[in-house]
């Protein structure tokens, strides 16, 4: 049996989800196939737009739209440049208003970047954060007395590290380690997942508040590792603030972490509620083409080949981590279009000598080349397939990690990939 869909989106990461939202809102019958959870659960849940540009200088910008204008002028092959300033702005505003109104109550300032403190005691610039990190932004700005609390036994978060790294510019910062013995079942190990599920319980929060209240002193804010439950995090934060009389915020940890998982779950559940088809676990592993069009996508579900007819397709399969790109010993390939990508000839030149630092690894800018409609092109610059568009990190010409532009690229190109398919099919119909 086969299923018919107006638009097939391959990839369950942020780009795939943004494309699915866009397609669904335009009334298309939308179907998503994801190979796994996508990379979202590995993120901090913070959404970056653009904060560092150019990557050579590591220069930090506080006004993302101005930075974006510069980038559009200077890097015509950057994914943002294919979308254009208006396209980026409209898609970000649309997606953000959905997230702002969601139970995760995303927080942003339309025209400014914000900054948060992380579990490493570093400061990360970003564009939008989950509501549970709003007070993180404010506390860092106001530098008021703040208690950073961790838990004895939780190896993923050291409040001392946060305080030691930031105290030179934030003297009112104090670290405490809370002993949860007696509050948590003795048999349960102190892990992110276990404590998160405890925070979902009213009784635990009451006991927790009793434990932490005497330690607050002059503190106006309480910072905790990002383990305050799952989808009800905002209720939990409100409840803690009510009990403690201070503003409470989360601090992102080493991934995989909860804020990313919350976002991934919410996006998926909302799309399912909107009636789209979402299949996860078995990836599309082969495409069939006729002339300049993809016609069928195949996946091997329980060893049975499943053929899915395709009229339009968005490829949002991610980079290496998500499986969208594959690095072999001597070359880099995109397995669905079965194309070899332009890459430095010697593996010695794929990466810089240093892991961190500027300007970024040459391999990071390798990706699928497209035309201005995000349709994949060959090495001669000619469009390979007219009913495929490409979205997200798999696109070439960017370094999202260093630019702090990952979410913005995914959302903007996710929307644009859908729009481009529609406009090019209209052009063809005429």
């Amino acid at each position, binding site marked *: 049996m086969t299923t018919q869909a107006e638009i097939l989106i391959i990839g369950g990461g942020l780009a795939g989800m943004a494309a699915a939202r866009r397609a669904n809102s335009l009334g298309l019958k939308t179907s998503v196939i994801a190979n796994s959870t996508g990379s979202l659960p590995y993120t901090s849940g913070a959404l970056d737009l653009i904060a560092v540009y150019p990557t050579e200088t590591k220069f930090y910008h506080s006004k993302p739209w101005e930075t974006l204008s510069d980038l559009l002028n200077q890097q015509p092959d950057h994914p943002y440049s294919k979308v254009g300033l208006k396209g980026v702005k409209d898609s970000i505003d649309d997606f953000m208003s959905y997230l702002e109104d969601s139970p995760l109550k995303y927080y942003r300032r339309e025209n400014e970047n914000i900054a948060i403190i992380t579990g*490493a005691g570093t400061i990360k610039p970003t564009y939008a954060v989950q509501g549970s990190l709003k007070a993180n932004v404010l506390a860092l700005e106001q530098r008021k007395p703040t208690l950073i609390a961790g838990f004895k036994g939780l*190896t993923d978060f050291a409040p001392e*590290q946060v305080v030691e790294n930031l105290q030179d510019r934030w003297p009112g910062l104090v670290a405490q380690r809370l002993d949860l013995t007696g509050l948590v079942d003795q048999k349960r190990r102190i892990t992110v997942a276990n404590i998160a599920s405890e925070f979902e319980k009213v009784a635990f929060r009451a006991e927790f508040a009793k434990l932490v209240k005497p330690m607050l002193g002059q503190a106006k804010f309480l910072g905790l590792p990002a383990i305050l439950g799952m989808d009800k995090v905002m209720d939990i934060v409100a409840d803690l603030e009510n009990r403690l009389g201070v503003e409470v915020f989360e601090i992102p940890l080493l991934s995989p972490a909860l804020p990313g998982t919350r976002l991934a779950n919410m996006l998926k559940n909302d799309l399912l509620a909107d009636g789209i088809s979402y299949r996860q676990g078995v990836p599309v592993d082969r495409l069939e083409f006729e002339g300049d069009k993809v016609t069928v996508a195949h996946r091997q579900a329980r060893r049975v080949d499943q053929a899915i007819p395709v009229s339009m397709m968005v490829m949002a399969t991610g*980079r290496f981590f998500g499986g969208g790109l594959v690095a072999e010993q001597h070359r880099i390939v995109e397995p669905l279009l079965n194309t070899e990508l332009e890459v430095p000839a010697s593996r010695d030149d*794929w990466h810089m000598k240093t892991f961190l630092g500027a300007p970024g*690894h040459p391999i990071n800018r390798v990706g699928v080349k497209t035309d201005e409609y995000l349709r994949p092109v060959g090495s001669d610059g000619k469009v390979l397939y007219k009913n495929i568009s490409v979205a997200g990190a798999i696109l070439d010409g960017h370094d999202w990690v260093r630019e702090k532009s*990952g979410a913005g690229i995914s959302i903007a190109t996710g929307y644009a990939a859908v729009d481009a398919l529609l406009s090019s099919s209209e052009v063809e119909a005429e």
Partner: protein
Amino acid sequence: MKVETQVVVIGGGLTGAGILRDLSLRGIDAVLLERRDFNAGASGANHGLLHSGGRYVVNDAESAEECVKENAILKRVASGCIEDCGGLFIALNEDSDEYVTDFLHSAEKVGLNTEQLDVEEALEDEPYVNPDIKAAIRVPDASINPFLATNSNLTAAKQDGARVFLHTQVIAMKREGGKIVEVEAINRTTGEKITVVADQVVSAAGPWVDQIGALAGVDVKIAYSKGSLLITNARLVNNVINRLRPPSNGDIVVPGETVTITGTTSIRVSNLDYLTTPAAEVDLLVNEAEKLVPAMRDNRYIRVYAGVRPLVLSDDTDGDRGISRTFTIFDHAKDGIDNFSTIAGGKLTTYRLMAEKISDLVVAKMGLSKKCKTDTVCLPGSEDGQTLDTALRLSKLKASTEESEVICECEFVGKKQLQELITELQKDGSKIDPNTLRLRSRLGMGSCQGGFCGYRTIGFLYEEGVVKQKEGNKMLMEFLERRWHGTKPVLWGDQLRQEQLLEAIYCGSLNIDGNL
């Protein structure tokens, strides 16, 4: 600080540690100076192979004979550092028949026990080995943990009163008449100067012996031969697998606890302190390893590392592989310095013998007649004859970390173990960072290579108050860069995927290199 002793040993590799231990066991007061941490040179960058001697029987009978004897001694006195996994020499169909005959004949001459196996029998024992083989010979090779071996020697020596100064670089030697009267060193962590006054000075500085010699005004002629090795994330063989052909690149695959190590190469270099392994050299090793064990092709390589062999030059050899791998002792009395000697060359397997021979010389120079005991007295941790058993070690660690807290999930290193190490290092006034802890615990030696546990370790150091302000994050950056140096040449496939995740975490999510 002024330190008086009978013998000062320069170099904290296995040889230097072995000498310190040998002298202490003879009741001689000794001090060791090491520029970095222990095993910072070739002792920490090798196969971890306890040679049976088979590798050398045909071309280098002297080395082979040394290996045969030392192999048996070390299995007795250092059993806790050794996994007696056994070894196979296999000849591929393309290899010469003549060499097989030569090998068996030469083995007999040096007293190496061999057993020729049916090819089928060998393949049953080693299912991942290339099935296209025509001969398989069993030898008593074993795998040895060089970090444990050096640390055990240092611990034993310290128990007998020796003093160890790590991160302490020799910067000058003061000569008066025909003697070195002072060795001046500096602690690279604290900047403190240390003046050592000793009756005898021994240089066991590996490829740096020429630089140490130069400080005393002595010319020690050696060549630097770099060898690169690769580690996979899984253990693919039971035995040490050797190619039954004249020694060449990438002809040995060694099971080392939870991983497999393959190498090496032999490339002349001039810079000792920044060793790199280009992609082409990695590819050569992968190709050669694949011939022995085809599964090595698709396995995930997690790191490459390189060490430098100091080759003592002689005139009648062709190529570095032809230079004898036995060791050389220089008595610098010949150069006009009575109380200075150098040991160079040799190999991990013969470290004890090397230590014995140079200690004999030093003792004779001192006019004493104290005999070596390292061939009979077991190292600490080896007294009960229990060999290194990875499963046993991991199960013990797992049991002990369940109630503490796991920092390194790949190798089950918990807070409790780290706390003990920190206490010990603090007692010595030694440097404490993820790398010093790694050398002493296997922290970060598993498949994530410290990508995740490096971060947790820093958090733990902050929790314990060992690091303050930004110094922990600085250590973390250094640790990540050091790790990168070994990972970069093997980035393809799944290893590249993992590195992309780490880059997204450290640079993207944490902005650890940012300037905000």
